[in-house]
């Protein structure tokens, strides 16, 4: 479990991070969401120890991180970068060996990963000869080659086509399943919604929300329901405790004052006509996001 405790960091006069605290749990994928300049990259650099915080600390399983532990992290920086003139496999092997793998271990691991990421045919090509999407896959391999203790990915999906997103997603999910904490930032809220178990929302250098996806959703879910009836739903307007927001024939969206009101509405609906649909309205991640960053 990776924890950030009240991290502050300024660049000159500009305060980029204010008391940033959150937890990344092992075995779960944590999505790190925020607008441009919200402080995502700075936070990740602090986790990696590439940047030192002005105050606050990062702990792993309760103990402060040591430089030696940090080297067992896997990192994919926002600004992609590999040596352009090195061969793909050679490069991943090199990074694996810098992490302490033997030449053989690094080679096996690099080849397996690249194979899974769909670069099996390109092992001997130089990085500069790959398309940007493929360079991105190689970059993922670079972060994963040494089976890191903690994985930190800055925008791992930007620039990938839908098929590549799927491939990378599967690799990451499998990796998280081994029990390591995985944190990744993304602008693509639909992907985050689909992939992550936990969410951290940052805006203006402050954490605005953090917790499990379901928890956040429940916290931001209004007592709002949607109903679709076979017959007319006009009677809803006269039901006590119900505020109708949207109405058209058999379809209506309404707020209720309590859970029992909703149940009463449902029972009456069943007794008057066929019910094609009755569901609480769950806000999408982007709705929650807009709400919390305001």
């Amino acid at each position, binding site marked *: 479990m990776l924890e950030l405790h009240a991290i502050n960091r300024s660049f000159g006069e500009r305060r980029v991070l204010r008391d940033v605290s959150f937890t990344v749990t092992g075995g779960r994928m944590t999505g790190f969401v925020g607008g441009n300049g919200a402080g995502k990259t700075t936070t990740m*650099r602090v986790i*990696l*120890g*590439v*940047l030192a915080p002005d105050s606050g600390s990062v702990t792993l399983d309760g103990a402060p991180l040591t*430089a*030696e532990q*940090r*080297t*067992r*992290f896997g*990192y*994919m*920086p926002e*600004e*992609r*970068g*590999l*040596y*352009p*003139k*090195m061969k793909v496999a050679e490069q991943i092997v*090199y*990074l694996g*060996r*810098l*992490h*302490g*793998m033997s030449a053989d*271990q690094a080679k096996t691991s690099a080849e*397996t*990963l690249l194979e*899974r990421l769909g670069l099996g045919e390109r092992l001997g090509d130089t990085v500069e000869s790959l398309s940007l999407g493929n360079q991105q896959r190689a970059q993922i391999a*670079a*972060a*994963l080659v*040494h*089976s890191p*203790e903690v994985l930190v990915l800055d925008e791992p999906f930007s620039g990938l086509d839908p098929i590549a997103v799927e491939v990378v997603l599967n*690799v990451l999910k*499998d*990796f998280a*399943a*081994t*029990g390591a904490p995985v944190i990744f930032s993304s602008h693509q809220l639909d992907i985050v919604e689909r992939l992550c178990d936990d969410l951290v929302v940052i805006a203006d250098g402050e954490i605005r929300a953090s917790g499990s996806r379901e928890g956040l959703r429940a916290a931001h879910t209004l007592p709002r329901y949607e109903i679709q009836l076979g017959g007319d739903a006009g009677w809803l307007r006269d039901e006590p405790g119900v505020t109708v927001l949207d109405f058209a024939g058999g379809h209506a969206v309404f707020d209720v004052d309590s859970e029992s009101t909703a149940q009463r509405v449902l029972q009456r609906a069943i007794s008057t006509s066929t019910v094609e649909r009755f569901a609480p309205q769950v806000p999408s991640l982007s709705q929650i996001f807009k709400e919390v960053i305001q």
Partner: protein
Amino acid sequence: MSTPSTTRFSTPATLPAVWLVAEREIRMRLRSKAFLISSGILMLIVLGSVVAGGIFGGNQSLPKVAAVGTAVTAVEKTDAFEVTEVASVDEAESLVRDGTVEAAVVPAEGPVGLTVIAFDEVPNSIVSMLSVAPNVELLEPSDQNPFLVYLVAIAFGVIFFSSALTFGQMIAQSVVEEKQTRIVEILMATIPVRVLLAGKILGNSVLAFGQILIIALLAGVGLLATGQDILLADVGPSIVWFLIFFAAGFVMLAAMFAAAGALVSRQEDMGTATTPITMLIMIPYILVIFFYDNPFVLAIMSYVPFSAPIGMPLRVFLGIAEWWEPLVSLVILIASTLVMIVIGARIYENGLLRMGAPVKLKDALKA
């Protein structure tokens, strides 16, 4: 991962990690055709000049003279001429006129008993061979032929200048490449910055030293093969000193080049950042060309760390350095190298993550 594993790798110890970085530098450099071709050319030039020196130095032909009558014996006695015997003074004169011989020697009155006939200028070398010269005693005989001294000075100068500059620029370039491609962020998250710097310096120093060593061996073998072993015995010790000084001096320059590279984020800005160091390499080269025969300037040069790799070996060659002088100078050089590594590492560490406009030296030292 397809095979969930709980094995965690721990980073290699400092030395293996330094060597990994160094090994990559070397491997990538050896893969570059431009590097291989330019090194090949440099080696060919060295070998070529050694062989050419052998051919032109070894086959120097004796001056041709024509001799008449009793003069023949006098001339042949010296063993310093290729003699053509002719019957008359007239015949000898005509050989001189058409250029077949440089001069004619004919019997004459006077203490030497010979007259030298030449075309339009006095053939001093021939005259001196036939003259009776007084004994000469030199108080401080110069061991070396001045032209040879000049050649050796230029050779040390050029080789130090070109190698230090080429490999130094390579280090700066490789630092900028890592910054520009941003891989430096991954590297910094993997290994300590000092390990990265040490690996870079080691890798490029090994290459630079390797190249110099090959050049020295080529020169040595070339001199032996062309029968110039006397020259080799003369130059040999100074070449060994040159190698030792180069090794220490280059590491110092390498640290400076790496620091300069860390100050900028684009290859385009590299020239400006490395200019001061280029100057420090160029000045000793220019000095040695102008002052190779000035013992005072050479003495100063041989102790200043930036010029010691040229100055001290040259003084050893000239035989004007006491036995302890190279050792003292080497200690000074190594000490300055250590200081420079500390300063360079600081600048390098502070400059690496600063992207965009070139970082001011002052800021990099302070932060």
